[in-house]
């Protein structure tokens, strides 16, 4: 017995839409099995991971706050992945964005700096992330070095750089030797939306990024070029689309958005620099991008789903004493299921018995 893939002639739009949902249900089932193997009740886990956060208004706000960096990064990554370029170092670009933006927050700390600080911080975050992302892109177009490995290696470098800064030059002198910077001034903190809530202005950036990305992908020549480069590289070359410029552009976009996510998280959520400013948003965003089918609107939905796994994971850590690694394992399972579901959308699977030539009379 073996599997055979038969390409489908037509794919219904409904199937494309249902595939990620099916993948989600399957991964929840698999996650439940793991929870059961660990000797806990899957139903209790489902309650704590999914139902409780969704029924508590405070947790719902938290959900949107956690989804913000995921959506920002994943929207950027969708540009790369559509062009079949593999930026897997968004985590590093996020960290560098946070460092660059925070540099200004720390430099103006305690001064009467005006309202220009915050926009400048965000700009620096985008710039830093974009430059960090351009390194692998440049190495790829100039030297032909695989962007996969270089972008990933730079994650470690960025994290060590942050570690050095918060333990060394940027450490709060009054912080009892804790490795953390001073708390940001109000002028360097993202304003809260409404009164007393948890939502900060960064949430709007994520929505705006998704909207702009949707326009760029569907309504501009650049978006079209991108899809052709990814789906049919030869056709793109014949059409005279410059691969190098595309590569540099998508890495700058995804790096910039990851950098923005970094500074938004630090100035809107954490309020200071610490050695660890991300529970792996840059890597989770890869799953978010695929779960959202590389589509900006899908990514908004997928970002909320994955944010739920973070919040549920933290809750389960406390109430069920389930390690946070369960969340990571679940995210891996989910990515597998999404990819498999995509395959089932494009191919029909046929079981072939050994020795029989499929679909063709024996010669």
């Amino acid at each position, binding site marked *: 017995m073996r599997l055979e893939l038969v390409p489908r002639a037509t794919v219904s739009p409904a199937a494309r839409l249902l595939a990620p949902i099916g993948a989600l249900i399957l991964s929840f089932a698999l996650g439940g099995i793991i929870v059961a193997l660990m000797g806990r009740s899957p139903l209790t886990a489902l309650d704590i991971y999914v139902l409780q956060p969704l029924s508590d208004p405070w947790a719902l706000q938290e959900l949107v706050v956690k989804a913000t960096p995921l959506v920002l990064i994943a929207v950027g990554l969708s540009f790369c992945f559509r062009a079949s370029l593999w930026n897997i170092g968004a985590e590093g670009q996020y960290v560098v964005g946070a460092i660059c933006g925070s540099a200004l927050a720390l430099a103006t700390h305690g001064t009467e700096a005006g309202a220009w600080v915050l926009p400048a911080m965000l700009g620096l975050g985008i710039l830093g992330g974009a430059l960090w992302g351009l390194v692998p892109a440049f190495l790829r177009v100039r030297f032909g070095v695989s962007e996969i490995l270089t972008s990933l290696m730079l994650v470690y470098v960025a994290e060590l750089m942050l570690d050095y800064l918060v333990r060394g030059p940027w450490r709060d002198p009054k912080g009892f030797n804790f490795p953390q910077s001073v708390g940001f001034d109000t002028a360097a903190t993202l304003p809260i939306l409404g009164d007393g809530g948890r939502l900060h202005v960064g949430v709007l950036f994520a929505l705006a990024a998704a909207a702009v990305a949707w326009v760029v992908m569907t309504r501009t020549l650049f978006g079209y070029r991108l899809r052709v480069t990814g789906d049919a590289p030869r056709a793109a070359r014949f059409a005279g689309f410059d691969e190098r410029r595309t590569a540099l552009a998508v890495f700058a976009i995804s790096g910039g958005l990851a950098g923005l996510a970094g500074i938004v998280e630090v100035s809107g959520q954490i309020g200071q620099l610490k050695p660890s400013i991300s529970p792996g948003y840059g890597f989770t965003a890869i799953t978010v991008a695929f779960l959202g089918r590389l589509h900006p609107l899908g990514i908004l939905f997928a970002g909320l789903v994955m944010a739920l796994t973070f919040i549920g994971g933290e809750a389960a850590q406390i109430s069920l004493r389930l390690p946070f690694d369960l969340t*990571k394992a679940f995210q891996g399972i989910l990515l597998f299921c999404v*990819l498999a579901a995509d395959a089932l959308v494009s*191919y029909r699977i046929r079981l072939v018995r050994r020795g029989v030539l499929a679909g063709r009379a024996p010669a």
Partner: protein
Amino acid sequence: MSMFEAVLLTIVTASTPLLLAALGELVAERAGVLNLGVEGMMAMGAACGFAGAVVFDSTALGVLSGMIAAVLLASLFAFAVLGLATNQVASGLALTILGLGLAGLIGAPFIGARREPIAHLHIPGLTDLPVVGRLFFGQDAFVYVSLLLALAVAWFLFHTRAGLTLRSVGENHTSAHSLGLPVVRVRLLAIVFGGACAGLSGAYLSLVYTRFWSPGMTAGRGWIALALVVFAAWRPGRAFAGAYLFGAATVLQLHAQAASIGLPSQTLSALPYLATVVALVLLSLGKRRAVGAPGSLGTPFVPDR
């Protein structure tokens, strides 16, 4: 034991896991499969290897558990990329995320436990030779296995018919298929071999290198092994050289840190990763495409029937 000798011995310890993982990935890539899940399989090998060794109180059974766990993960990857023709890059990333998560779950109850050092070869007379004695005749079994494996892989790839088949599958799967070669079966075996090697490498980390389990202990070694394969231009001999060069650089960096030469420790810790980037750039200087990359590397195979 002189300082020099001690440094040489630690270089061997640092290089062995890299060599093991790189050899496995090299075979998979020669068959045309890019498996970015090495880091995840290695973490599983380390966690399950350690857990198995503690539970069964046997290093050998621990190593076996680690290898089986990594092979199971590799089979999942194989099912996705071969059975369903999913994108290899994305599937490999999924494997790394899943492997790191599962390893954390499995290893959690064993945090704090320690294992005794494993037996080293001892040949009276030879092992006691100054400087070279312990280096050549006093290593543990993993080291000798990794060296034999490098030779075996080189012999298999370039001197056997099966090796030729494997390489042709990786070079051009369409031609290989039309010649009647079993593309999918060859790739499945190559992926499983890669998993076993990554598992062995992970088990070495937790059972010999540190002798305890801690989350994140693979510290990017799986990724460095992937880079080594490129660096080695898909040749086992060069993978050996690369792994030892890299191992040496890592150890010297540790010694520089200990000697506190005025640079921040984070700068020195970042060196292995920066060195990887620089090595990849130097290697491809002036050439447009990666040297020696198998032609079908990373492309899914769906036969036209």
